[in-house]
């Protein structure tokens, strides 16, 4: 797609009567800071942007159409690819929808396995978000520190489900594998070390003066705006709305777990600025550690998967399930017509909502700030385009 369709105002007259031309820049689809293949049409007056118009679709893999062509079980590996940075949540969403349609109850140990995997995956995803945030602001070392810890998590996932990124861990009715022997101890060892790493990360970058100055008061999203644009998860909480699906609309075994919901407090500037969205993620890392510890302590023995026929045919109907993914409230609207193939699956993702707000918040900020905004919204291209 060219510039056609984008009504870009090129010439402008200043107050003194001088005619000036805005610069139209194409940022992406191949740009190091667009996290995948995103494109922004940037209209700038020197370093100051007038507008950034997002242009998406470069990573559209028609996953919703694929859902209609492969069976209920067969679609599960595809959900890994919806958001490959946090694949566990997409697994969870699809299985939750299928279970709700068919009225299957997951064994309690299975639910605990899911929550442990979810929270590890949340750490996994937030680490990448925090790391790439630092890298986009220009600090490369924190990124590698975050990736280093993520690598240890990958090793844990690898032992749990055999894969490092596209997990395919959950199955309709439970999870595919029980925790391997000795795995829980490894997780606890990791968590003990990881919490000190978070402190170190905060000292290294989060509260670095240059870093906070770059993020404070940039692209402030008010609570009303956030709700109107349906921002979810850390982006919503960064704007000061204390809403977490895990706590306020609980699913799985979250009601049995004790954790806090961090919200943006305007620590470095205004509530809802880039720094708030960033620091909420950092604080969630510690909450996830807390949840995992509780799960490992509380989890009962027993089966981890319910009896589900291989030829799975849920009764006709539709349902809408929500879960708190790493990027926030993820909605799955699934329609079944009683056959072995899903009739329709619509995935409402956090990044899709988040990118739609970019145009509204990118007026009169610097080009360098746009990169901070993209990183602070934690945009993940595959999740936007699906």
């Amino acid at each position, binding site marked *: 797609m060219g510039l056609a369709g984008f009504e870009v105002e090129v010439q402008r007259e200043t107050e003194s009567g001088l005619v000036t031309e805005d610069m139209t820049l194409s940022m992406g689809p191949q740009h190091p800071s667009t996290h995948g293949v995103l494109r922004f049409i940037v209209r700038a007056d020197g370093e100051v942007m007038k507008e950034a118009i997002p242009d998406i679709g470069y990573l559209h893999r028609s996953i919703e159409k694929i859902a209609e062509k492969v069976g209920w079980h067969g679609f599960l590996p595809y959900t890994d690819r919806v958001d490959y940075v946090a694949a566990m949540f997409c697994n969870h969403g699809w299985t939750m929808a299928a279970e709700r349609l068919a009225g299957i109850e997951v064994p309690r140990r299975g639910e605990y396995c899911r929550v442990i995997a979810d929270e590890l995956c949340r750490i996994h995803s937030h680490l990448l978000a925090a790391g790439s945030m630092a890298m986009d602001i220009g600090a490369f070392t924190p990124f590698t520190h975050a990736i280093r810890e993520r690598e240890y998590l990958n090793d844990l996932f*690898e*032992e749990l489900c*055999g894969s490092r990124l596209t997990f395919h861990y959950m199955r309709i009715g439970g999870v595919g594998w029980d925790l391997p022997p000795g795995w829980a101890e490894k997780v606890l060892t990791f968590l003990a070390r990881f919490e000190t790493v978070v402190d170190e990360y905060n*000292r290294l970058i989060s509260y*670095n*003066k*240059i870093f906070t100055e770059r993020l404070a008061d940039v692209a402030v999203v008010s609570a009303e705006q956030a709700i109107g644009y349906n921002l979810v998860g850390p982006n919503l909480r960064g704007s000061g709305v204390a809403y977490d699906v895990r706590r306020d609309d609980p699913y799985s075994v979250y009601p049995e777990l004790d954790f806090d919901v961090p919200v943006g407090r305007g620590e470095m500037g205004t509530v809802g600025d880039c720094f708030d969205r960033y620091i909420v993620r950092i604080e969630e890392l510690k909450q996830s550690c807390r949840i995992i510890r509780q799960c490992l302590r509380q989890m009962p023995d027993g*089966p981890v998967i319910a*009896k589900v026929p*291989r030829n799975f045919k849920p009764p006709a109907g539709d349902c809408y399930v929500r879960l708190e993914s790493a990027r926030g409230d993820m909605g799955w609207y699934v329609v079944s017509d009683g056959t072995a193939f899903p009739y329709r699956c619509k995935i409402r993702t956090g990044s899709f909502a988040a990118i739609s707000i970019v145009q509204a918040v990118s007026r009169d900020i610097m080009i360098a700030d746009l990169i901070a905004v993209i990183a602070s919204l934690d945009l993940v291209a595959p999740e936007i385009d699906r």
Partner: protein
Amino acid sequence: MGMSAYLRNIKDAATTIADGMAITLSHFVRKPTTVEYPDRLPDGVRVQDTLPFRYRGMLEVDLEICTACLACERACPIDCIVIDAAKDKAAGGLVMTRFDIDMAKCMYCGLCSEPCPTGAIHHTPEFEGADYSLESMVRRYVKAPTVAYKPKKAGEDDPRIAPILDRGMRYIAEFATPDGPSGDS
């Protein structure tokens, strides 16, 4: 901006930058976490040998214990497995003439190995899959027509097949079942 805010800015910048530099310097004396893949690995152990049993790498088929039940072919969501098998009275059961897997298409989901009754099709820790053409990524396991394996009630006694079957069953046992805790955990 007042004078105190001005000086506080300078102080904050100096202290946070110094603290950050202390952290990076402390990393300077920490050992690295990476290995020199692929040729200079610690103790000469290949990475593949350090991966867990559940690791989902390249698919492998043990034809000796394949029952030609076609469960994997049916389970595959992208149809990257093709099996041709026909009843042959003379040979004494099902005879497989084709068992092909397109590894270029495979998405390593593991759905094929789950329904396998003997663990004949399973993932290996092998992950070095680069090759020069798509054709060479197609693994053709049946070289000559092969009689499918028939599980014996009394257990396998053929010393050639027993260890393979043993491994296969161990692989199957890793998967969770509705009946209760799996494996030895």
